[in-house]
């Protein structure tokens, strides 16, 4: 006993505007949240890259020191 509603397209009279507003608020909240998380993720990735570079730099320094020691 399914009843299919008439006209799936949003009617442009007043009721439609309110319903649209409510659903838009919902979507906007989700998107804002995702955007904030994206910013945080970028910051974490930058931190990770920094860490990787620091570790690589330290490895390089240690390698240099070893070379120096062998000569001495």
């Amino acid at each position: 006993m399914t009843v299919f509603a008439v006209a799936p397209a949003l009617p442009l009279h007043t009721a439609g505007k309110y319903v649209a507003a409510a659903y838009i608020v919902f979507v906007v909240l989700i998107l804002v949240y995702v955007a904030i998380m994206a910013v945080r993720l970028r910051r974490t990735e930058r931190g990770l890259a920094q860490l990787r570079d620091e570790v690589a730099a330290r490895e390089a320094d240690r390698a240099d020191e070893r070379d120096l020691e062998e000569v001495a």
Partner: protein
Amino acid sequence: MSSYSRGLRGLTIATVATIAAALALVFFYAPLDADQGFIQKIFYVHVPLAIVSLCGFVLGGLFAVGHLRTGDRRWDMRSYVAIHMSLIFTVGGLITGSIWAKASWGHWWEWSDPTLVSYLIVFLLYATYQPLRFSIEDPERQARYASVFAVVAGAFVPMNFIAVRLSQGFVHPRVLTLTGGRLPGSMQLTFGISLLGIALLFATLWKYELAAKSTRMQLRRLRRAVLGEDAVRPLGRSAAPS
């Protein structure tokens, strides 16, 4: 600890699918309400948001109980994220409720709707959660006090709804639900799927936020282990047990 991201993709797909199905049902399947007409469609986004946010607050209280009993700060993190997420959902619920009130009765707020009023009071209470947390500097104490707050507030949620409803006994409350008693089956199905979709959305975002926090935490630990204590800048506002 990064087990939070396990299963996250599957959960997200389920969430997207359910919400898409719910939207399709709302606009293509559910019949028009006899009294309110097209405006009633807001019901399918407002009520699930409200229900899920309230459950989220109670869940935050339960996680807080776990933290107080075990002392494990991870419970506190779960509690914090649950409450934080519920607060956002509550803002959504209040705005959609207000839009529904305006569409139904002509003004943006309606004092004689006990559910909406109780909801506002709960929002006012939980809005103090973050100011409280971040005004306590010691992280251990911050977590403990936040948990105490979460437990008290979580118990307050049902009490508040009962008290407000009892106080409206004599006045005929205007209630934002469907007049005419029981929902027909098609509306019930649509509502159920919408509720499931929003609940899944909550779970997904909760996991997502915890995964992000826990990753950040591990990065800090790694920095500290590899580069020494000075390389790690102190956290500003954060609930993570650094």
